[in-house]
């Protein structure tokens, strides 16, 4: 084979880089200056407030006499922000459940892990029961902690986790149903999806908490949190279904035909051929939908559940600590952002892995 020539040197040097990227045209130069100006207007005051003049030391409001943020407020209330009204003596149960979850997820991250499928199945199917038993108690001598005492970040993660975990399988089934050749299945799925998509989430939550008990026969009660989660999961499922349906439509018809021609039955065709391709196409949309689900858990506030934002708001109105709501909201925003960013990053990793087969096309 003829040896290939080395590729041309395309490095520009610092000055060249500046010219090429920041000052390549009049418009670009203008944008560069506007950008720098905005940066100078916004960033220094924020840094001053959040870092330079902020108070971190101390345990009371009186410690906060600087002009900046009072992080003492966050520090003092951190346990409540995380656990809500969960009794202090029982908080280890929450920690244990999350530690188990982190452990399981870490195992799934190890690339050459044997029996990965089983670990994933355990995480998806068995772990929720373990977590529920730990959180709620009532067996093995664990005192019962009613769901009305759950709150904070802990509650946010439970609601979002359940809604996200339930929405994907539900969404897949609904999307398959909507594309089904069986008219009844198709009609049921279409009506279901359109119903949930047409109703505001707030209405769903109100209905779940106020109206549902009216329809249930007397004496039957459902936990408020459970009702909210069921409503939330159905709502999220309908949204995810449409994203998945978009992915299904993106799989070329030839794939369906080739799978059929090989004698694969419907479920095998979907599981082995169609869904792996459709979900790859749909990943950005699915992640979008997951992030929305996660952030919208804050709405449970209106039916009297205290998620992270709810509990921050409640504590910020405590006369003892009046005037530090901003710190609380900034903290909530930072926490939500951190989780969303992690999810987004993780999804990119998954996407890259799944698209390995496209290399060299």
């Amino acid at each position: 084979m003829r040896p290939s020539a080395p590729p041309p040197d395309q490095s520009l040097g610092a000055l060249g880089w500046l010219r090429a990227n920041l000052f390549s045209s009049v418009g670009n130069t203008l944008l560069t200056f506007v950008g720098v100006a905005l940066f100078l207007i916004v960033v220094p005051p924020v840094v001053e407030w959040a870092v330079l003049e902020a108070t971190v030391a101390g345990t009371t409001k009186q410690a906060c006499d600087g002009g900046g943020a009072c992080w003492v407020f966050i520090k003092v209330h951190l346990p409540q922000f995380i656990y809500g009204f969960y009794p202090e003596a029982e908080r280890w149960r929450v920690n244990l459940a999350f530690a188990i979850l982190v452990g399981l997820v870490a195992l799934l991250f190890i690339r050459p892990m044997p029996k990965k499928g089983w670990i994933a199945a355990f995480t998806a199917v068995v772990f929720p029961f373990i977590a529920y038993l730990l959180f709620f108690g009532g067996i093995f001598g664990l005192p019962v902690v009613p769901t009305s005492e759950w709150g904070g970040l802990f509650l946010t993660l439970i609601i979002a986790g359940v809604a996200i975990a339930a929405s994907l399988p539900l969404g897949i089934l609904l999307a398959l149903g909507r594309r089904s050749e069986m008219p009844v299945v198709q009609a049921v799925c279409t009506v279901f999806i359109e119903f949930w998509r047409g109703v505001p989430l707030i209405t769903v939550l109100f209905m779940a908490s106020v109206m549902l008990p009216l329809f249930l026969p007397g004496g039957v009660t459902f936990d408020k949190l459970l009702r909210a989660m069921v409503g939330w999961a159905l709502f999220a499922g309908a949204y995810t279904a449409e994203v998945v349906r978009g992915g299904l439509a993106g799989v070329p018809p030839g794939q369906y035909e080739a799978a059929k021609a090989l004698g694969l039955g419907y479920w095998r065709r979907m599981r082995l051929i169609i869904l792996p391709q459709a979900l790859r196409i749909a990943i950005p949309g699915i992640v979008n939908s997951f992030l929305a689900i996660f952030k919208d858990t804050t709405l449970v506030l209106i039916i009297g559940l205290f998620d992270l934002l709810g509990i921050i708001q409640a504590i910020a109105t405590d006369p003892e600590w009046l005037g530090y709501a901003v710190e609380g909201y900034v903290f909530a925003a930072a926490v939500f952002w951190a989780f969303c960013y992690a999810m987004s990053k993780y999804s990119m990793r998954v996407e890259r892995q799944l698209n390995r087969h496209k290399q060299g096309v």
Partner: protein
Amino acid sequence: MTRVNDSNADSGDVRSAVRFEDVNKWFGDFQVLRDINLDVAPGERIVVCGPSGSGKSTLIRCVNRLEPHQTGRIVVNDVELTEDVRQIERVRREVGMVFQTFNLFPHLTVLENCTLAPIWVRKVPKAEAQALAMEYLERVQIPEKAEAFPGQLSGGQQQRVAIARALAMQPRIMLFDEPTSALDPEMIKEVLDVMVELARSGMTMLVVTHEMGFAKEVADRVVFMDEGEIVEEAPPRKFFGEPETVRARQFLSQILAH
């Protein structure tokens, strides 16, 4: 009728690999197949040709019920194709298909493409399925690409893998729908060579193609279609030498003009 005649009628079934009896099919109001009668014996090699839109693809897609027919009967290896999904899947297990656009599964390696159906449909143990798949990949002369993904192969290579994938199910009948039409000229031969070899091995084949050289070399019969009808059916020598109908003559003059 005597019992002997009855059993003769039965063994008549056994003698045909594919049988169309007065088959009609419509897409909406448009009739694509008109009174199709066709009997394909085991081991027979049929080439179907005809102008674009004449219903060739539809005809062979009816054999594994990628398209349902509306009236008449289609019997494949003694199994009649009806609504019954189990019957359909029984037929599809015995009938391999190769498409114009290959339709390999892009998310699976070449080897996985070839072992998937044997493992899940025929319940062949994985190791055995892999060994078998390698045999077929060798037969289509592409064993070195077993671990590649379809997107990394040329069109001709992809089509040969598609043939191996269909063969790995050890079908009794193979359907080809214009297998070389999407290929660059220099790749057509490598695919046709594989098909010729397959024909020599005694496989029952129904091939839609415009490759008249292939038809002359291996076909037992050429079926000429136009406007949803089988207009002419003859051994290649007769069909190409002295076609009976005007439509066939016109078609041939157009094809050969190329």
